[in-house]
């Protein structure tokens, strides 16, 4: 796996116990600093792909490379959380501590960082997500948007080079969603965002991976894929409203 790539995936396949195929010979690579949207219908394999990238699902040797590490190698897998952070769809699955501070500090403490460094990172991460002063709050009393930002802060505090966001806008109201989009846009580093919210993807990414039934069916520039109404409809998706005019134009051009 080339070390200069942020993510490299080569012929990755995975079947759940019982034989149901979730990923079928998926291959792609991502340069450092790229923002990539992963789209596809429900059950396409987006979350499974993310779980393979962060080493939760076992993968074959040399099929996945993340920040120069191979998640199939136990030693690499141990240091992977410092390089690649994932924010899960349901914040309640991710936030388990009884204070916001403790939850954001959980990752840095696991990295074995000194206490002062942990405090600094927690403070910076909370400020980045706009939750300065929330350290003593009880996570369960926060709104859905605030919980999502705490979950994000918990990952940002580990300063990963690669950030994976799984359905980041689900369960958020319009204001929370808008704030989240601004936040995602402000984050540097390599980003992979799996979402059905194609407007969020359009505003946050420049490249799209379209997955359906475990297969990578399209990989290209955002506009080329999201505005292709035939491709989108063939895979259970719709052209985002903001690109529908563009899609209409393209369709007439082709016809």
């Amino acid at each position, binding site marked *: 796996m080339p070390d200069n790539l942020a993510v490299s995936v080569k012929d990755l396949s995975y079947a759940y116990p019982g034989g149901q195929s979730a990923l079928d010979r998926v291959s792609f690579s991502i340069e450092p600093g790229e923002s990539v949207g992963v789209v596809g219908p429900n059950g396409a394999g987006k979350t499974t792909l993310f779980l393979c990238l962060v080493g939760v699902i076992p993968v074959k040797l040399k099929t996945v490379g993340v920040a120069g590490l191979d998640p199939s190698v136990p030693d690499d897998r141990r240091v992977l959380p410092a390089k690649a952070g994932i924010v899960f769809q349901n914040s309640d*699955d991710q936030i388990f501590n009884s204070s916001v501070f403790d939850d954001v500090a*959980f990752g840095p403490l696991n990295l074995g960082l000194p206490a002062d460094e942990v405090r600094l990172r927690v403070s910076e991460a909370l400020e980045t997500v706009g939750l300065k002063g929330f350290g003593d709050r009880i996570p369960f009393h926060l709104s859905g948007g605030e919980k999502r930002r705490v979950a994000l802060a918990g990952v940002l505090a580990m300063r990963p080079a690669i950030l994976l966001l799984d359905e980041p806008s689900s369960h958020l109201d319009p204001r929370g969603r808008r704030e989240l989009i601004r936040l995602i846009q402000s984050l540097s580093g390599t980003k992979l965002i799996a979402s059905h919210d194609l407007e969020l993807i359009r505003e946050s990414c420049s490249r799209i991976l379209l997955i359906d039934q475990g297969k990578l069916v399209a990989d290209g520039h955002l506009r080329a894929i999201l505005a292709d109404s035939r491709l989108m409809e063939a895979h259970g998706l719709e052209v985002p409203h903001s690109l529908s005019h563009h899609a209409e134009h393209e369709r007439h051009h082709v016809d």
Partner: protein
Amino acid sequence: MTLRLDLLPSPDSPLYRFDPRWKLAGIAVAMAAVLALRSPRTLTIAFAACLLLAVFGQVPIRWLLRRLGEVALFLSPFAFLLPFLATGDGHDWLTVAVRVYAKGLSVVTLALVLLSTSTLPTIFKAAHALRFPTTLLHVVMLTYRYVFVLGQELRRMRIALRVRGYRVRANAHTYRTTAHTAGTLLVRGYERAERVSRAMRCRGFDGRFRSLIEFRTRREDLVFLALVVGTATSLCVWDYAS
């Protein structure tokens, strides 16, 4: 959502400032001693000592009494029915009632003193430092966190049942539905546990909880421990000698 344990008063008192390890150890010894006592006289003195500890910890009395009242209500069937059900030990009704009440209320008072003079993460950390079994601590900590989430799921499921016309009745349909609800809740709990574990591993969790809380033993902590252990031992000796 309201978490009763999160709404505990945390008065700034000498007890609040004690090293949580020695506080936990002292209170654990006191609880064991209370449970070992037999005579109503020593049990009454032990309960008085527990209340004294609550006063020392500046636990709000009205708050404490309200909770003790609830516990007393819960204990009443045991206290009043047990003498009629138990046979052959020769104790009168009052002795058994005093035993049940004094033990129950003393243990709850001690638990409330501990919970209201330390934060839960601190208690878990102190328990870890005192070498309580790690797995047990993880289970307690995560149960405390997720029992409310599962409670919310149960509420949603009950609403979903009601809006489809379900009413609890004494028939096979109700028993079957209750069993299905419990089963679904178990499966959802298991799935959530899987997801939580996955999220923790993704943040570098290796089975060991780390914390920024640092403990420091001072002379006052040891004096407190000696006082509690001394009182507990004296009561036990008196109880078993008389």
